[in-house]
């Protein structure tokens, strides 16, 4: 900060090529006004559909089709949420989703941290080769493996169970391995060395030193996995064909087919499905953004 001030003062002292020191603050103000205006306009554009959804979700169905539209519902019909959630077994869908969530999160965190530790800390011939393979699988479109993997699970008799959606997580996922590895690399080796001198083995180093120090990264992995499972549509669509095994995503799609033009209920159900992610996002915004910063860009 201090150095920046010095530089700015210098800039005032040594003006060049039509540089007009007096107009600088005016121009800055002008730029700020433009930035605010554009940001506000953009935000309004983003928020209109959200507002529309909330407004629709709280209306009686008779008001949905009014022209001109009633922007603020009157009366506010909170019952829509109850009606929407009880008209299909959303409780079961929620339970199914949560089973997959827990299994996937446990599997991902366990496998990815072990693999990431290997890539971050252990030297072995072939390490770089496998790391490149790992990175390139991140770019591999899922479509090439989709059909054979389905056939494997079908052969195992796992279709219409949650296993196809849980078990692969125990084998790590390239993106999270990469993310954790990047984080592990930032932990000083001294801690580990000290623990090793005290006689700790690799497993102890991982569980007592690395993982406790990596809570932010593990939080990011957990949140992203949670979000991935919650939002997954194609996976459940392929593997879960019986209504009693549906996840929330499939349930909402089913609901959409059953309650055509009951827009207040459909919006209420969509809103319920979005809400946990919105809350999670507000609570853990830092973890979201840090996770992206950690992997997305290498400055």
């Amino acid at each position, binding site marked *: 900060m201090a150095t*920046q001030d010095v*530089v*700015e003062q210098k800039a005032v002292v*040594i003006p*060049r*090529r*039509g540089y007009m020191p007096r107009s600088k603050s005016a121009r800055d103000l002008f730029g*700020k006004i433009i*930035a605010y205006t554009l*940001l506000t306009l*953009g*935000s309004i554009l*983003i928020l209109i*559909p959200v507002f*529309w959804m909330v407004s*629709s979700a709280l209306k009686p169905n008779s008001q949905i*089709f009014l022209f001109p539209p009633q922007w603020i519902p009157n009366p506010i019909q909170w019952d829509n949420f109850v009606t929407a959630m009880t008209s299909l077994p959303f409780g079961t869908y929620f339970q199914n989703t949560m089973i997959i969530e827990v299994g996937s999160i446990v599997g991902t965190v366990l*496998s990815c941290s072990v*693999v990431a*530790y*290997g890539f971050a800390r*252990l*030297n*072995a011939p072939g390490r770089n080769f496998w790391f490149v*393979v790992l990175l390139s*699988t991140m*770019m*591999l*479109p*899922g*479509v090439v*493996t*989709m*059909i*054979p993997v*389905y*056939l*494997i699970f079908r052969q195992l008799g796992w279709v219409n169970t949650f296993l196809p959606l849980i078990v692969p997580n125990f*084998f*790590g996922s*390239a993106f999270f*391995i990469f993310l954790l590895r990047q984080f592990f*690399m930032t932990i000083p080796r001294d801690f580990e*060395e000290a623990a090793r001198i005290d006689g700790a083995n690799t497993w102890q180093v991982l569980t007592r030193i690395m993982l406790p120090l990596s809570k932010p990264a593990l939080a990011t992995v957990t949140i992203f996995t949670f979000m991935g499972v919650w*939002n997954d*549509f*194609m996976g459940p669509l392929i593997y879960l064909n019986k209504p009693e095994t549906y996840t929330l995503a499939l349930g909402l*799609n089913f609901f959409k087919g059953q309650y055509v033009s009951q827009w207040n209920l459909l*919006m209420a159900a*969509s809103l319920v499905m*979005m809400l946990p992610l*919105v809350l999670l*996002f507000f609570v853990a915004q830092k973890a*979201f*953004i840090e996770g*992206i*910063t950690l992997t*997305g*860009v290498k*400055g």
Partner: protein
Amino acid sequence: MATLSKPISDSARPRLPRVNRWKKSETWLFYLCISPWLIGFLIWTAGPMIYSFYLGLTSWDLFTAPRWVGLDNYKDIFTDNPDFWQSMKVTATYSFVSVPLSLVGALAIALLLNSKVRGIAFFRTIFYLPSVLPAIAVAVLWIWVFNPQYGILNLLLGLIGISGPSWLGDPHWALTALIFMSLWSLGGSMIIYLAGLKGISSTLYEAAELDGANKVQQLFRITIPQLTPTIFFNLILSIIGSFQVFTQAYAMTKGGPQQSTLFYMYYLFDMAFIKFRMGYASALAWILFAIILVFTLLVIRSSSLWVYYESETK
């Protein structure tokens, strides 16, 4: 990075005969650690890829044994299948329009969000939020937004005297509607840009200011060149993503009307899991894979022309 964190104590440690054995056991330990991923790679990625290629050369309906047909699937797809070409056209149109639009749009928003004004965190949240929402819930929301009579889009257009088309119901507008909708959730690439922008050293701007460069010059001479690695990363991700659009097509339009939103992924899903033509669908999967691969390699190859890496010049 790897060299930085290399332990100094390695060389300082007295060299014991045990070192060799430790090296060996470290190798063993490394492979033990990565074994979950390695095994997973073999059974969920490498094996299936080979299997899928083989399946592409067969005809298989899941109920009778696979029948070897050689390259017939590919021949049929390319020469005798209007649906395939339609799905290519739809997917390519979507990619070529939505990828540049979302790259530029996300960059513009990120640049705005990078300006030092108060309340930025609030705006950042608003712009990012749509991209964390479940695709299916977003799809249901937008079906309602696009509703021809009562949807908010046409209501708003009505206010300024335009009578909007029936969007998802109109073969000329359905794809446009989906592209428009995709711009709503460009927050994902935006946040990556934002991280990239934060990584640009402020000394560059200070130096530019000293030399009297204005904001526009700074944008084109510093910000964008410095940001090219991030743009590159986003470009690859968006290309791969745009070729695999599925949920919107499945939940919003079912590929219609008149196949105007017959996305490749939707067509493939339909072949594999509705019509159970596993061999044919596998061939389709390999074609899509090849296309994505070619585009990705083109971008990577071209990157030396336009992506600027700091470390190269030092």
